[in-house]
C-alpha cells in the first residue's frame, strides 16, 4: 500500500515534468532554421517552390506557429504522436520498431557496467593501496578517458578484422532462417562489442564510485564489530561492507540512463545498431519534427520510468528507506 502511494506520488510529479519537456522540445526545435520540406526537396536534387510549398502544406508546416503548437499539444494529450514528415509513417510505430534494440543495448551495458563496477570497486577497496588497487585504478582511469567512437573502432579492428571472431556491426546475421535459441546466440554475439563500447566508460565510473564508497563504509563501527567477531576479511568486504556501499552506485546508474541514451547514438552509428539513437540523429538532420518530438517524448518517459524503478529498488536494497 505504502509503495503504491509512493508510485502514485511520483507519477503525479511525472505528468507535469513530461509536459514541460514536450513544450521545451517544441520551442527548441522550432528555433532551428530550415524544415523537412526543404530537406526532402534538397535530397531529391532540388525542386520547384510549388513542390516545396505543397509538401509544407501537407505537413501542416504552413500554419502559424501557435496553431501548430496547440495541434501538437492536443494530439500529445491523446497520446497521438503524429506522422513522420520524411517517412510518412506513424511516429509511434517507427519508435516501436527501434526501441527494443536500444533498450537491449542500454540494459545490457548498464547491468554489466554496474555489476563489474561494483565488483572491481569492492576488490580495489579491499586491496586498498596494494598493487591490485593500483592496477584497477589506472585501468579505470584509462577507460574513463577513452573516447567511445575510437574505442568502438579499435574493438572492431581487433576482434572483427584481425581475429575475425566477432561481427563488425549489425544486430543479427542477415538472411538466415535459424531456430530461436541460435538466434538469441547470434544476437548475443552481435551485442558484445557495442555493449562493451557503451558500457566501459560506466564500468570505470562505477569502479571509482564503489571504491570510494567502500572505503567510507570501512570506517564504520559495524565493520570493526564484524572484524572483531572474527568474520573472514573476504566476507566483511563482499557482504557486510559492499551491501552498504552500493547505494551511491545504484543512484548514479539510475540518473545516467538518460546520459546513456546520448552515448548510444554514437555506439549505434559505429556498429550500425538499429536503435533509437540513430533514428533520433537522422530525424534531427532531416528536421523531421514530429518524429523528433516523438522520440524525445518517449525517451523522457523512459528516463522518468527508469528513475522510478531505481527509487523502488532503494527499498529492496536498503530496508531503512522503505520505512
Amino acid at each position, binding site marked *: 500500500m505504502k509503495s503504491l502511494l509512493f508510485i502514485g506520488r511520483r507519477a503525479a510529479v511525472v505528468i507535469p515534468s513530461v509536459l514541460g519537456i514536450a513544450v521545451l522540445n517544441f520551442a527548441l526545435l522550432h528555433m532551428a532554421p530550415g524544415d523537412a520540406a526543404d530537406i526532402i526537396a534538397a535530397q531529391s536534387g532540388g525542386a520547384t517552390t510549388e513542390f*516545396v510549398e505543397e509538401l509544407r502544406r501537407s505537413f501542416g508546416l504552413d500554419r502559424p506557429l501557435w496553431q501548430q503548437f496547440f495541434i501538437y499539444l492536443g494530439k500529445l494529450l491523446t497520446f497521438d504522436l503524429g506522422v513522420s514528415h520524411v*517517412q510518412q509513417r506513424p511516429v509511434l510505430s517507427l519508435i516501436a520498431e527501434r526501441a527494443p534494440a536500444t533498450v537491449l543495448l542500454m540494459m545490457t551495458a548498464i547491468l554489466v557496467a554496474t555489476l563489474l563496477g561494483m565488483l572491481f570497486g569492492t576488490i580495489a577497496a579491499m586491496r586498498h593501496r596494494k598493487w591490485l588497487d593500483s592496477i584497477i585504478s589506472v585501468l579505470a582511469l584509462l577507460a574513463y578517458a577513452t573516447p567511445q567512437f575510437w574505442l568502438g573502432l579499435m574493438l572492431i579492428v581487433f576482434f572483427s*578484422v584481425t581475429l575475425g571472431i566477432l561481427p*563488425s556491426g549489425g544486430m543479427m546475421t542477415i538472411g538466415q532462417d535459424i531456430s530461436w535459441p541460435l538466434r538469441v546466440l547470434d544476437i548475443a554475439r552481435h551485442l558484445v562489442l557495442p555493449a562493451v563500447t557503451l558500457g566501459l566508460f560506466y564500468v570505470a565510473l562505477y569502479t571509482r564510485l564503489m571504491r570510494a564508497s567502500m572505503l567510507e563504509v570501512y570506517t564504520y563501527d559495524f565493520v570493526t564489530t564484524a572484524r572483531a567477531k572474527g568474520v573472514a576479511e573476504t566476507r566483511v568486504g563482499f557482504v557486510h561492507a559492499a551491501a552498504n556501499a552500493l547505494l551511491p552506485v545504484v543512484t548514479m546508474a539510475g540518473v545516467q540512463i538518460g546520459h546513456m541514451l546520448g552515448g548510444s547514438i554514437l555506439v549505434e552509428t*559505429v556498429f550500425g545498431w538499429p536503435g533509437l539513437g540513430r533514428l533520433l540523429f537522422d530525424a534531427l538532420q532531416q528536421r523531421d519534427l514530429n518524429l523528433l518530438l516523438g522520440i524525445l517524448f518517449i525517451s523522457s518517459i523512459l528516463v522518468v520510468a527508469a528513475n522510478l524503478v531505481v527509487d523502488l529498488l532503494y527499498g529492496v536494497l536498503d530496508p531503512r528507506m522503505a520505512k
Partner: protein
Amino acid sequence: MNSKTLKTLRAMLLAAPAMALFATAAQAQSCPKAGGTLTYAYSLEPSALSTIATSAVPVALVATKMFEGLLNYEGPSLEPKPGLAESWTVSEDKKTYTFKLRPNVKWHDGKPFTAEDVKFSVEKIVKPYHSRGHVYFGDLEGVATPDSLTVVFTLKRPVPFFMNVFQAGETPILPAHAFAGIDMGTAAAVRGAEVMQKPIGTGPFRFKEWQKGSHIALERNKDYWRSGFPCLDGIIVRMIPDGAARAIAVETGEVDLAPMSGLPEAEVQRLSASPKLEASQAGSEALGPNLWLELNLREKPLQDLKVRQAISMALNRERIADVIWYGQGKPARGPIVSAGAFFNKSLPQYEYNPAKAGKLLDEAGYPKGAGNVRFKLSQNFLPYGENYVRLAEYIRQELGKIGIQVETRSADLGGWLKTIYTDWNFNLTSTFSHNYSDPSIGVERTFGSGFIKKGATFTNSMGYSNPKVDELFAKSAHETDPAARRKQFDALQKILHDELPVIFLMEPAYTHVWNKKVHGLITNGISMYSPWDAVWKE
C-alpha cells in the same frame, strides 16, 4: 602523401576502367552464373522505397531494382533500349511518342501490367509529385491508351530530352491498382501510400523485408519478363552509418559493394590497392555532378567581373581535386561536366595565378588596406561532410593571400538550405549540383533568371540574370535539330565560363567500390540506378 601518388591514383581511377568496364548487358543471353546474394552498404536509411517520395541516393539505389521505367539505357550517354516498352516511334514533328508495351508482364502481386498503369503513373504520380516531374512532363498535352499495350504521349512542343526521362528512378511505373482509395490530390497521401514502403513493381527483384535501421532484403522475381534473369537470388541493402565501419565491411567481404562514393575518400585510396577489390569512377556519367563556389551577385564586390576572375585565379583546382578530394574528381571548366554529351571541348582550363588575381583586384578598385585586407566576405559551406570543411578552410586561406578576408560560417543541412536558398543571406558558399541526363534538366535551373525564386533548393541563388543566357536556354529546351542544339549549348557554356556567375571548381566523381567477385555492375551512365538484372556473382 605526395602528389605523384595522387596523380597516379587519379589516372588509375579515371582512365583505365572507363570503357572496358561497361558490360554489354543487353547482349548477354544468359547468366554466366546464377544464384548468390549481393550485399551493398550505404550510410543512410532510405525514407521510402520509391523515388516518388524522394529521389535521394539511398532511395534511388534500392527502388530501381523493384520499379522499372519504360526504357532501359546503355552506355554512358544513355542510349535507349527496350524495357517495359518493346518498341517506340517518334512522329515527324517530335511531338508524338508512341510506345508499344511488352505483353504478359506481371506486377509482383500477379496482376497484369497495362497501358493504364503507365498513363496513371505519369499523369497522376510522376508529373505532380516527382521532384523533377514538372521539368519532364511540363509540356505534356496528354497520354492516350488506344489499347492495353499502347501508350501515346502528345507534347505541346518538342522536348529534345524526352527519351531520357523514362529511367526507373525518374519516371518509375507504379501499379495503378495500389493507389485505389488514395486521395491523389495531396502529396502526403501519395507519399504515404503503402506501395512506397512495400513496393509492388515489375522489376527483376521483389521486396522481401525491411528491418528498420538494419537492412532491406530483396528477392529474385522468378516471373521477371526477361526470361533467365535476374542472375542473383537476391539483394541485401545494409545501412552502416559509420564510414570507417563501412570500409571494414567491404574489406572483410561482409559487404560486396559500396556504391555512390559510399566510402570516405581516404579509405577508397587504401582499399583500391587490394587485389580483391575494384574501385571505379565509371558508371555515373549521366548524373554529371558539378561542384562550385556559389556567389551572391547582389553583394557589391561580387558584382564586378574582375573580382570574380580574381577569386577564380586564386584557387588551385588541381589541388582541390588531388588533395582535398583525394584524387576523386577533376578541375571543372564550366557548367556542363566534361563527361556530358553536350560538353564544349573548346573551353580552356581556368588559370591559377594568385599574382594576377591581386592585380585584378587593384584594377577593380580594391587596394590593400590595413593588415593587407582589401575587403571582407563571409562563406558558408555545403554540410556534406569533411571534404567541404577542408575546402572552406582552403578557400579562406587562399583568398586571404590575395587580400580577401573570409569568415566561415557553419550550419547543418536544414540551416544551410534556408540561409542560401530561402534567405539568400550569404556571400560565398560551396555547393554541388547534378547536370542529370540533359543540360535542360540540370543546368538551366542554376543559371536561368526564371529560377531566381526564394525557397527553391539548388536553383539560381546568385540572382544571376543574363537575357542572352535565358534566350539560349529557352531555345535549346525545344530545339529539334541536334546540331543546332549543340551550338546553343556551346555558346551557353562559353558565356558562363567567361562570366563566372559561380566559380566552377571541380567535377567530383562518384566512386563505386566492389568485390571483384561481382560482375556486370557498370552498364550505363546511371549504373547504380539500373535494374541489375544481369549482375552476377562468382
